[in-house]
C-alpha cells in the first residue's frame, strides 16, 4: 500500500471505463453531440495524455482542458519583470524548473541565464531560503508561482524568513487562485461545459466549499479528483452520473487527501502573508478580478516587487496575445488545440507562441507531445 499504485490498477480501470461508456450512453451523448467535461487542473490534463485516457473513453465524452496550468497562464509581462530582477547585479533568482522556458517579450529565464543572469532551479522555496543563508552577500529572490497548492509553501517560507530576519531573501509573488477563472468561464455566453473535474491538490488546501457557487448558481456538477488515472476516471464517472440524474453537486472523490474544509494551517499562513490583488492578468484569458494575491505590507521586506521597485501595474501592460494565437478559444472549449492556425507551425514547444504550448500541462503542448491528432492518425 503506498496510496498511488493501487490507483493505477488496470483491472479496476476496465470496470470504471465500462461504467463511463454506459452512463455516457444513458445521457444520450454521441460523437456529434458530446457531453463536455472540463478538467480544470493542468495536472489532470497531463495525466489524461500521459496515460492515454482520452483514447479509452467513449466518443460521446469530450474533455475540455481548463486553465489550471499556472505556468501557461503566467502573463509575459511578469516574465519580463522576473528577468529584469534576475539581471540586477548581486541577485540570485530561484525558480521551479517549470518557469524556465516561458517566453517573455524580451527573453525567457533560460535565455536570461545564458546571457549571464544567476538563475537557479530549486525544488522548494525552502531551498531558496537556504541559499539566502549560504550567500549573505547576495539577494536571493524566489519566483513564487502556482495555485493554492503552492501558495502556502511560499507563505510559510516568508514567515520563516521573517522569524529568522533573513533580509536578503524575497519572493516575486505570482500566486493565483482557481475559483475566479472558473466563474469567468461560466459567465462566458458561449460556454458549452456540462460539468467539471475539480483540482485535487488545490482543494486539499482550500477544501471543497469554494466550489459551491458552481453547483448552486450555475447548476453544474463538479467532482474534486485525485491525480492517479483511476482517480480521474472515477471522478469523470461521478460527473456523468450527476448529469444523468439531473443533479448539480460538489462531490469529493479525493477524500483520502482532501478534507472538506481544507488545511487550516495552510489557510492561516496564506491569510497572514497575502492579500488579494484587485485583479490579475491570465495569459489567454485577460484580467480576472481578485484572481491573484500579493504580499501584505507587513511583509514588504520580503516582497521583491517592493524591494526592486518592479511590479504589477508599474510597467506598460501588453495584454494582447500574439497574432493568430487562439489559446483563449481552446481554453473555453470552442476549438481543439490542432484547430488553431498556429498549432505546430508558428507555435511549438521549442518556440511557444501561446500560453497552452508553454508547459506539458498545457493542452496544446500535451497534444503536440503526446499525440492528439498525430496519435489519432497513427492508431
Amino acid at each position, binding site marked *: 500500500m503506498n496510496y498511488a499504485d493501487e490507483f493505477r490498477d488496470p483491472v479496476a480501470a476496465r470496470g470504471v471505463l465500462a461504467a463511463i461508456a454506459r452512463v455516457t450512453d444513458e445521457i444520450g451523448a454521441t460523437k456529434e453531440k458530446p457531453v463536455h467535461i472540463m478538467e480544470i487542473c493542468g495536472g489532470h490534463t497531463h495525466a489524461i495524455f*500521459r496515460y492515454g485516457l482520452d483514447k479509452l473513453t467513449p466518443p460521446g465524452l469530450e474533455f475540455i482542458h481548463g486553465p489550471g496550468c499556472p505556468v501557461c497562464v503566467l502573463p509575459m509581462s511578469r516574465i519580463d519583470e522576473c528577468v529584469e530582477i534576475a539581471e540586477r547585479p548581486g541577485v540570485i533568482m530561484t525558480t521551479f524548473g517549470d518557469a524556465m522556458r516561458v517566453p517573455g517579450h524580451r527573453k525567457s529565464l533560460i535565455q536570461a541565464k545564458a546571457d549571464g543572469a544567476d538563475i537557479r532551479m530549486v*525544488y522548494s522555496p525552502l531551498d531558496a531560503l537556504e541559499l539566502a543563508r549560504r550567500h549573505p552577500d547576495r539577494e536571493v529572490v524566489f519566483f513564487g508561482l502556482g495555485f493554492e497548492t503552492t501558495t502556502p509553501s511560499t507563505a510559510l517560507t516568508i514567515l520563516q524568513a521573517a522569524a529568522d530576519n533573513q533580509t536578503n531573501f524575497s519572493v516575486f509573488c505570482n500566486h493565483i487562485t482557481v475559483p475566479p477563472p472558473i466563474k469567468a468561464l461560466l459567465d462566458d455566453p458561449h460556454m458549452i461545459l456540462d460539468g467539471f473535474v475539480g483540482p485535487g491538490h488545490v482543494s486539499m488546501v482550500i477544501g471543497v466549499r469554494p466550489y459551491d457557487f458552481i453547483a448552486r448558481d450555475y447548476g453544474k456538477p463538479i467532482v474534486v479528483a485525485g491525480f492517479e488515472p483511476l482517480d480521474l476516471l472515477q471522478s469523470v464517472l461521478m460527473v456523468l452520473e450527476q448529469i444523468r440524474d439531473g443533479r448539480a453537486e460538489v462531490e469529493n472523490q479525493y477524500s483520502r487527501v482532501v478534507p472538506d474544509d481544507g488545511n487550516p494551517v495552510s489557510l492561516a499562513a496564506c491569510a497572514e502573508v497575502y492579500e488579494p490583488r484587485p485583479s490579475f492578468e491570465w495569459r489567454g484569458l485577460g484580467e480576472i478580478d481578485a484572481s491573484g494575491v500579493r504580499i501584505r505590507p507587513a511583509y514588504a521586506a520580503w516582497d521583491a516587487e517592493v524591494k526592486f521597485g518592479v511590479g504589477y501595474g508599474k510597467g506598460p501592460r501588453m495584454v494582447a496575445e500574439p497574432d493568430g494565437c487562439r489559446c483563449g478559444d481552446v481554453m473555453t472549449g470552442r476549438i481543439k488545440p490542432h484547430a488553431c492556425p498556429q498549432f505546430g507551425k508558428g507555435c511549438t514547444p521549442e518556440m511557444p507562441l501561446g500560453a497552452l504550448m508553454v508547459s506539458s500541462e498545457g493542452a496544446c503542448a500535451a497534444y503536440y507531445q*503526446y499525440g492528439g491528432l498525430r496519435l489519432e492518425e*497513427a492508431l
Partner: protein
Amino acid sequence: MNQQLRPPRRVVADRVTLAHGGGGKAMRDLIEDVFTSVFAPPGMEDQARLMHPSLLEPGAQLAFTTDSFVVSPMEFPGGDIGTIAVCGTVNDLVVGGARPLWLSAAFIIEEGVPITILRRIAASMQRAAEAAGVRIVTGDTKVVGKGSGDGVFVTTSGVGVIPPGRTLIASSVQPGDVAIVNGVLGDHGAAILAARGDMALTTDIQSDCQPLNRLMEAVLAAAPAVRCARDATRGGLASALNEIADAAGVGVEIMEADLPLRAEVKGVCEILGLDPLYLANEGTLVLFVPPDQAEAALCAMQATEAGRGARVIGRATTAHPRTVIMKTVFGGGRIVDMLVGEQLPRIC
C-alpha cells in the same frame, strides 16, 4: 632505456596551475605522474603505433568514433567522468558491432582542479578500460584559466574492428522486429540529478555506467541476425527509439508495463515531474532483432553481467511509420517524441 633509468617524474603541486599546461617540465610531470604511469601506453611518441591481427582479416572494417564528456558533478555514485569517458566511447563502438581495441584520451583541465581528483579520474578510466579489454594508447592535456572551464572535460576517441560479415545498421530494422533493452532505465540520469544536490534529494541510485562489449559479443554469437543496437545515452531510450524509427522508416510500439524501472528512479521522476524515458543512461542499450532470434538474444543477454535485467519492451510496426508509441498500462496510447530541449523539473 634512458627513460627507465631516470627516476619517475612526480607532480609536486596540490592543484593544477597554468604551468601544468605550459609545455615545460611541470606539464611533463603531470602527464607522466598522473596519466601515463596509470595508462601505460605502448611508447611515448606523439602517436600510438599499433598492430592487431584482426585488422588483417579480409572484409574486416576499422571503426572509429569520438565523444566529449562534460558532467557535473565530476564524481557521482557509480562512477566519475573518467568512467563514462571510457564506457561511452567503448559503447559507441560496441553498438555498431565493433570490437573496441584502443582509445585516446584528451583532457581540458581548469586551473585549480585538485591533482587528487585527476588521479581518481585516471584510475577510473584505467579500471573501465581493463573491464572493457581496451587500452588507452595516446592522449593530450591542456590547462585553461579559472572560469574558462568547469573542472575537467574529457574527449575520448576509440578505434575498433568490425569482424567480416557484421552489419549493424538502424535502417535495416523491419516491421515485426523485437526491441530488447539490457536492463533498468534512467539510473545514470537520476543518480546525476540527485548528486548535483540542488534539489536536495538523497537516494542510493548509482549510475549504470559500464562497458557493453561482452554483452554485445554474447548477443551477436547467439543471435547473429540482430539488426542494430543503440546506446540510450543523452535523451534516453525515447531518443534512441526515435532515431531508429526514423532511420528505418518503421513505427515502434513499446509497452509501458514492460519497461524495467527501479522504484527509486520512478520516485525521483514523480517528485521532479520527469519522464524516465528521457533520462540518460551510460550502460544501457536497446537492440532490434528478428522475432525468430529474439528469445536467443534475450537469453544470451541475461547470461551476462550487464544484461541480467534484459527485457523485451516492444517491436517495430508497419503502422505509424517514424513514430514511437507507448501503450500505457491502461491500454491507452501516447506518442513518445524526441525531447524538446533539456528535460526540466516540472514541480508546481
